């Protein structure tokens, strides 16, 4: 069931067609499957392995490297609270502690109603806006405890329309017209990228 559904399989094929090496589509396809199910399931990884012609272990190796891919269920709103150095200095630990209290769950757990989960993450590259967090990868900057609570209430009541639920298909898809594709028009005429040559993968 949690393999890519028919519609997403079509999108997957489109994504695959963008790359000279099928393997390159691995990460975009992981995103796609997370959009579909809200997490990356084992079945989805197996499906992706078939599509990009690698072993499921290789998909898992890549998938588990990136924290943005969740291999366990998360809340509809996944809150990533940054505790990188800048955020740390400006009170990230307080935000984390507050989140735990106000949501009533520990880091990594899901609230009873299934709406929220949170975790501490490394620097999300918005240090000037510290302490900051992401809800389903949308930034919320300089959050105080009150603002955090407000955010949670708004999301709960459906008053925040900016942030879609976790696992919603992205509204926009990358759609590159062929004449705007980077690189030589004919893939075959291009010399393989340096990393491929080095890894001798292109022979």
């Amino acid at each position, binding site marked *: 069931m949690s393999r890519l559904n028919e519609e997403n399989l079509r999108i997957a094929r489109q994504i695959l067609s963008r790359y000279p090496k099928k393997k390159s589509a691995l990460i975009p396809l992981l995103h796609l499957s997370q959009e579909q199910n809200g997490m990356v399931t*084992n079945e989805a*990884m*197996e499906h992706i392995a078939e599509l990009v012609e*690698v*072993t*499921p*272990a*290789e*998909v*898992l*190796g890549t998938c*588990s*490297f*990136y*924290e943005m891919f969740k291999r366990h269920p998360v809340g509809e709103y996944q809150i990533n609270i940054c505790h990188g150095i800048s955020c740390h200095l400006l009170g990230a630990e307080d935000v984390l502690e507050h989140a735990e209290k106000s949501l009533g769950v520990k880091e990594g757990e899901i609230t009873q109603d299934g709406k929220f989960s949170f975790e501490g993450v490394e620097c999300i590259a918005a240090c000037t806006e510290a302490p900051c967090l992401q809800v389903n990868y949308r930034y919320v900057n300089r959050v105080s405890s009150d603002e955090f609570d407000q955010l949670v209430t708004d999301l709960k009541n459906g008053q925040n329309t900016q942030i879609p639920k976790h696992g919603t298909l992205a509204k926009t898809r990358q759609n590159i017209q062929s004449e705007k594709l980077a690189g030589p028009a004919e893939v075959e005429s291009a010399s393989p990228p340096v990393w491929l040559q080095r890894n*001798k993968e292109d*022979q």
Partner: protein
Amino acid sequence: MTEIQQDSDLISVTIDGQEVKVKSGEVLIDACEEAGVDIPRFCYHKRMSQVGMCRMCIVEVDTGRGPSLQPSCMMDVSEGMVIDTQSEEIKKIQDGVLEFLLINHPLDCPVCDKGGECPLQDQTMAYGPGETRFVEEKRHFEKPIPINDNVYLDRERCILCDRCTRFADEVVGDPLIQFIDRGNSTQVNTFPEDPFASYFSGNIVQLCPVGALTAKPYRFKARPWDLEEIESTYPNPLGDRIVVQSSRDQVLRLQGLDSEAVNWGWLSDKDRFSFEAFQSEYRLDNPLVRGGGLNKADKSGTGLVASSWAGAMSIITESLNGADPDRVAVIGGARLTNESQYAWAKLAKGIIGTDHVSADLGDDLQPHVLLGLPRATISEACQPNNTIVLLTPDLKEEYGTLFIRLRDAAKNLGVKIIELSPMRTALSADAAVSLHPLPGEIGNVVQAITTGDIPREIGGISGEDLSLAHSHLKDTNVFVIVSRSSMGQSEEPIIEALTSLQEVDNCRFLPLVRRANTMGALDMGMAPGLLPGRNTLSSGSSVFSDIWPNLPTESGANTKQILQKAADGDIDTLFLLGADPLTDFPDKALAKAALERTNTIISVDLFVTPSVYESDVVLPAASFLEADGSHTNVEGRITPIRQKITPPGTARPDWMIAAEISHRLGHDLGVDTPEDIWEELGSRSAVHGDLDYRKLDHLPDGHLITATGRIPFIPAEERIETRPVDSYAMRLILGRRMFDQGTVTQMSPSLTQLAEKSELRINQYDFERLGIIEGAQVEVSSGGASISISVKVDNRVRRSSALIYSNLEGADPRELLIEGAHSIDIRIDPTVKESA
């Protein structure tokens, strides 16, 4: 990984104050080692790519800009380099690296199999800190988890050196183990429920520099310091070099020996774990005779009962005394060492006087193909820019380490592989051209490729592909690796293909045999018409006649003819030397009839195989772990086989059995030790003359026999026309699996469960076309015969052909073979039978 040596010039560098000459372009860590300076390491392995994971090999390097700290495995030497491996800085770094590596290491050495041979333990003693400053909690993982049937992984011990994962991915192409997670959580693991199903999984246990990977057959069996070891050869067709390790007269482990010429230290799991079979309770340890009670031989008895050697011998002498030599025959001998083969050849041909001696079992290339073509070694074929033509089935199944060598050649040396196998194989992805001629059509395909006379298509292979293959044969050295790829195809099409390839300039060949020491058997005269040293009966008789008094004058019968004669009642005494025609000979009915009609069948074997079970006298032989001798691999490379343990019960080396029979027939075979044989042979065989048996242990690559041309290749005369497969039929391919019903797999507890059941494999397209249900039992027929077998989709099989692996549990595809046919078309009746 092989380094391409573009510039073999020597350059000078200074290592620890000593100026030394090293090969330009060499990796620094290797250069130091050659200069006698040992650098500690964990991740570096010269047969794999460099990753610089562990930082243990750091040295100080000065290339003129002042000393800097560099991992010596990630850097090549250059002229004038000054290297310091001993400075205070380096000592501190080594100490520091080890302290970090040990942070999460559980230090459970007292209960770890690796303790005593563990690089982490050894290097910590030599370079590391005595104390840890780490007081925090270490990482915890479930202690060992099985990653397949034979290998356990303890992630707490792992130091993340990437050796096992690199091996899986780079060396054998089974990337089923990976680094999972990141940072402090990184671990080696498989995908859930997807085991490390590799034919080569045992190698990662040998590679792991800590005790994170352990092999079930060896776990908690011994301590390294209790092991004695000896370098030997595994008697498979490639003659993979091994180290046999034992304790208290029991072999506990086989390890790969890094031999530059052959296996590079790798072994297939079948060979590595097979030592269990040779020590299993099923080993024959005493003679058996058909009879009534102990020592009371009674040939009319029904069962096999234990006997003494004397009792068994008396039946043998009785059947041989005054026998007509023409009614005596010997089948088999590929299991034997060279020395035992000589002894048996001498007994059969020189003493008994029969030339009906044949080591093949009707499923191998003929002697004139094996001996008549200009031969190449594996390393000669695997040189940059060569072209290798493969007329073989999937090498991964039967010739594991050759598969590894060719994969390396294609991936890292720019060798072009033209694969002409009946189906997609593990090498197809790396081949420059991978074509799959239908069985029977290989001759036509090869002719087109070699001559460049390209038709529009041949049996579904396009002219374009043929031209591409043709282009790779030009301006290069061409090497051909050939074997009987499918029992569903007769030998003629292959000979036809070889005849065309012979015309290619400088083309050389590496013919593969199916059984262990078949090459030795031929060189020792175990084929009709042959005498040792590639002499023929007609031309070489005079060389041997003084010590082989009863040499026959007429050339004798090969296995097929012997079985035919036996079935006609023309053979009274048949020796089976480790041969099991009932299982292996393609025409099972003929084998059965032959064994039924022969008066006295004498088996010399290690196990009770189906044919042994039909024998009248069974003599237990010593295995390669229990006797000294030597082995000849497919290249003609002679390497030592060394005794490590004593044979079970009263089992003896095969040559000793031959000597004993000869003695009882009133002739001294003149052989008291394996050395004697080389002395006798040395003076008479020009081929073996320059071999110094006593030095064999000290030749890292063994001794290569190079003579060719003494036995000429007989080219094909007629052309076999292609035959279209009609739309109701499929062309049959009979393949082989690494793990099957063969005795070695079946008698090794760690391997038996790896053998699958017999299945018919076809392409998804045909599957849908025929409307079959996956896993359904179908009726498959050819000629008058039919078998019932379940079906599986396998897209490696091309359209219009069907694959069945031989010798698996269930349906026996030999039933479908038709005597004399170049290829077999089968029909599938997809109606599901109720009984299924």
